[in-house]
């Protein structure tokens, strides 16, 4: 009875015993609920370029203002950034390295974008793809944010790219030469619109030593109702500010729960948010610990380093942050507070 084949038969027979029809009341209840449920907007591009998060939007706005005022901007460059650009490694060409592609809307459509939802300006233009030491990242040049770092393996002409936002691994065939990289089908459409060209650039940041070990740290789950109440209770915010925070910055209108996490890996801090369990990358940037009580977070936006300094308090496997970089306005302060100061962030 308990050999493999018998067990399998018994298990299948046992699994067959059970209902195979959904109760009508359940289906009708779902359909009724759907009548009043809005769909989530699809803001992704073919490879799921992360949406800009509130922090980054604010930072972008600050950068634009700074440039308009005559190029007053923040500069902070960790020591790891300084040095000669990386060069292509000797030997047979590999996928490792940094690649650029530039294509138009027409070229993107010709490659087979299947619906109008992906036909938007975020999906064409100038992109940069980096493969280095088992990690890959893609960013859009000139775009304010996006492109968290994730893992990959490659060999035998197939690249296996893990996409944390989709939680899937793409298996994409490719051919590589010393100067170009061409993807086949099997992955995001944007990868195969045109061949990518190898460029030399700065290497990816490496792990940084400090009071926090690498890993993912989860913040507490907040009720959206509490966030809304806090927004409404903040007397510094105008009515328009409140609407902007709820609808546009946090995008939690009609949602229930919200949480943030901070991922420290390989010198990159990736900030993610989960709204009703749907996770998306918010922003990413380099991080450094000048001392055991300071975390410096540096986002690169439009080729400008935007620096935020936090006071860091480590308590075992968790930490809290307190922003010491001044904020520009009440919206900035509120949003930054929720994103980074709603801790403790606890090691996963």
């Amino acid at each position, binding site marked *: 009875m308990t050999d493999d084949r018998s*067990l399998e038969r018994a298990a299948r027979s046992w699994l067959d015993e*059970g209902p195979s029809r*959904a109760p009508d009341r359940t*289906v009708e209840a779902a359909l009724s609920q*759907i009548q009043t449920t809005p769909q*989530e907007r699809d803001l992704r591009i073919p490879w799921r370029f992360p949406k800009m998060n509130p922090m980054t939007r604010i930072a972008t706005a600050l950068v634009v203002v700074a440039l308009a005022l005559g190029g007053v901007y923040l500069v902070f460059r960790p020591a790891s950034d300084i040095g000669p650009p990386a060069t292509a490694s000797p030997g047979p060409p590999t996928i490792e390295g940094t690649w650029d592609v530039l294509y138009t809307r027409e070229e993107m459509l010709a490659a087979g974008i299947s619906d109008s939802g992906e036909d938007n300006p975020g999906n064409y233009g100038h992109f940069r793809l980096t493969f280095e030491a088992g990690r890959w990242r893609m960013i859009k040049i000139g775009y304010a944010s996006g492109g968290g770092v994730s893992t990959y393996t490659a060999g035998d002409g197939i690249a296996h790219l893990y996409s944390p936002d989709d939680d899937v691994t793409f298996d994409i065939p490719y051919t590589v030469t010393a100067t170009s990289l061409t993807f086949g089908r099997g992955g995001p459409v944007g990868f195969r619109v045109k061949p990518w060209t190898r460029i030399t650039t700065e290497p990816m940041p490496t792990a940084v030593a400090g009071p926090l070990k690498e890993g993912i740290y989860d913040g507490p789950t907040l009720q959206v109702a509490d966030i809304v109440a806090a927004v409404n209770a903040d007397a510094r915010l105008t009515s328009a500010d409140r609407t902007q925070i709820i609808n546009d910055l946090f995008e939690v209108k009609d949602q229930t729960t919200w949480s943030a996490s901070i991922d420290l890996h390989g010198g990159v801090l990736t900030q993610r948010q989960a709204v009703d369990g749907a996770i998306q990358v918010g922003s990413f940037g380099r991080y450094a610990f000048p001392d055991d009580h300071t975390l410096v977070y540096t986002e690169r936006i439009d080729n400008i380093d935007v620096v935020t300094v936090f006071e860091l308090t480590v308590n075992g496997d968790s930490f809290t942050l307190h922003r010491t970089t001044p904020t520009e306005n009440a919206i900035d302060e509120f949003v930054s507070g929720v994103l980074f100061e709603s801790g403790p962030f606890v090691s996963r």
Partner: protein
Amino acid sequence: VIAATWSRPPEVEVDRDLVERARKGDREAFAVLVHQVSDGLYAVAWRILRDSSLAEDALQNALVLAWRRLPKLRDPDRFEAWIHRILVHACYDESQRTKSWRTTVTVLPIDLPGSSDGTSTIDDRDELDRAFRHVSIEQRAVFVLHHYLGLPLVEVAELLGLPAGTARSRLHYATLALRDALVAAAEPMAREGRLA
């Protein structure tokens, strides 16, 4: 009648055009899809959760979440796999929400398909049922997708977004638990046999 009540739901051919329309906000198209896939989804949820009430909640939540997220579905041809994945996660949520499993009394028909060959006795089924409740929800999901839907392990792994090794491991542990249960059920009978 038995087949209609107890067998696997027939595989449905999901209409890509319906998925495309639903992605663009067409509720009527989505309702048609719901009617096409609900039976199969419920059957899977029930087998993972072994509880009608929890399975109903999981199905309802999965359908609503699928509607919300449908515009983000990358490939309409993968609708079925995608919605099964949402369902499995809804099952995880339900199992978290209700830690204590409620007992569902199921009246079994006398002439069950699969029992006629003698491979599954009432005792076996009871033991399997009890043992399955002690298997983790993640392991159950892999077990059901593999043995009930008949998906190869690589497809189970892909559907759940797991490395193939993880799916294999979960199936292995679920199988071990069920085998142990059957061995335990068989031992008293064997002892009785020896005594006789």
